[in-house]
């Protein structure tokens, strides 16, 4: 079955599911409450067994009005048929929490840590939600659109070692 066919099947179970297609790539949009269930269904009943990526988009200054500030994006692959599907859900402040999908895919562990590191979205049920790329003491989430490119002084905040001290 092709991917639009799978989506039409899913719409019986998830009536609020909206979807679109662009150059053969199918994107579905789901609410946060049904996200885990949808991903579980895709994995267990439709063969999308590989989690290719989890990432996020900050639509803060986006021209178009979006349902929420952050778009959380899951890219799934069916390793038998090489089909791909993109699942997106929107989150808005102050409740930047999504269910962790580590029970479904172990690969989600580091991907979710990266999203937390860069966008500050927490994942409920994640086993070890620490920063993965930035230093542990870092307080901001730099891929947010309202974070200044040159930072908030982090790059200037080190002790100065002088000749006489070293």
């Amino acid at each position: 079955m092709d991917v639009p066919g799978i989506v039409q099947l899913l719409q019986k179970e998830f009536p609020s599911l909206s979807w679109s297609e662009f150059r053969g790539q199918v994107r579905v949009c789901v609410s946060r409450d049904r996200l885990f269930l949808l991903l579980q269904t895709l994995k267990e009943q439709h063969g999308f067994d590989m989690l290719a990526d989890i990432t996020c988009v900050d639509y803060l200054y986006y021209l178009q009005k979006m349902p929420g500030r952050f778009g959380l994006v899951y890219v799934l692959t069916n390793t038998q048929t090489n089909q791909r599907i993109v699942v997106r859900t929107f989150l808005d402040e102050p409740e930047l929490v999504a269910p962790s999908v580590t029970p479904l895919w172990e690969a989600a562990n580091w991907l979710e840590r990266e999203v937390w590191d860069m966008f500050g979205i927490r994942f409920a049920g994640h086993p070890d939600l620490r920063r993965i790329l930035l230093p542990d003491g870092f307080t901001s989430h730099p891929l947010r659109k309202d974070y200044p490119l040159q930072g908030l002084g982090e790059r200037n905040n080190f002790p100065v070692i002088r000749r006489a001290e070293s």
Partner: protein
Amino acid sequence: MALELPDNVRITKLDAIANWCRKYSLWPMPFATACCGIELMATGASRNDIARFGAEVFRFSPRQADLMIVAGRVPIKMMPVLQRIWLQMHEPKWCISMGACASTGGVFDTYAVVQGIDRFIPVDIYVPGCPPRPEQLIQAIVDLQEKIQREGTVMGREFVDPERQKPPLAMRPEGRAGLPGVIASQPLDGEHFA
């Protein structure tokens, strides 16, 4: 009173002979983090042959090195490592900041990249270029040799010169005021990112 000396005996200052020994046996510690490291390797290879200047013994342990060559950009996560390695080196020690990124941050004017290592560790010679040619690095080593011969002392008195204890302008209050993204209230010598 003229002292009769044999032909094979010379009289000199202790400082001068110590400097002469030191300048021709620089052991570099290659802190190579980016493409400048490739030119650093080329400088060590046979065509340019840094051994002609007595600096061919690259040591990957800071305990055995006396010249740190910082080649490449230094991100905020690497700066504590760089400082720690610098502190682990034995005196007398020198530092070459190789390339635009190590000296100024280069084109990487972002939150993650330190805008010049000289803000946080002492630097003796700056090498411009992106990346510099091996000839430029060799020139830097020759310049450093001249500097060591000119102002070095046996006991390292030049390292406690009060003028040298001043922080670079970029880290003094008057120099920091105009920097983008600086929070005046943030302590400079406390915990990182406190």
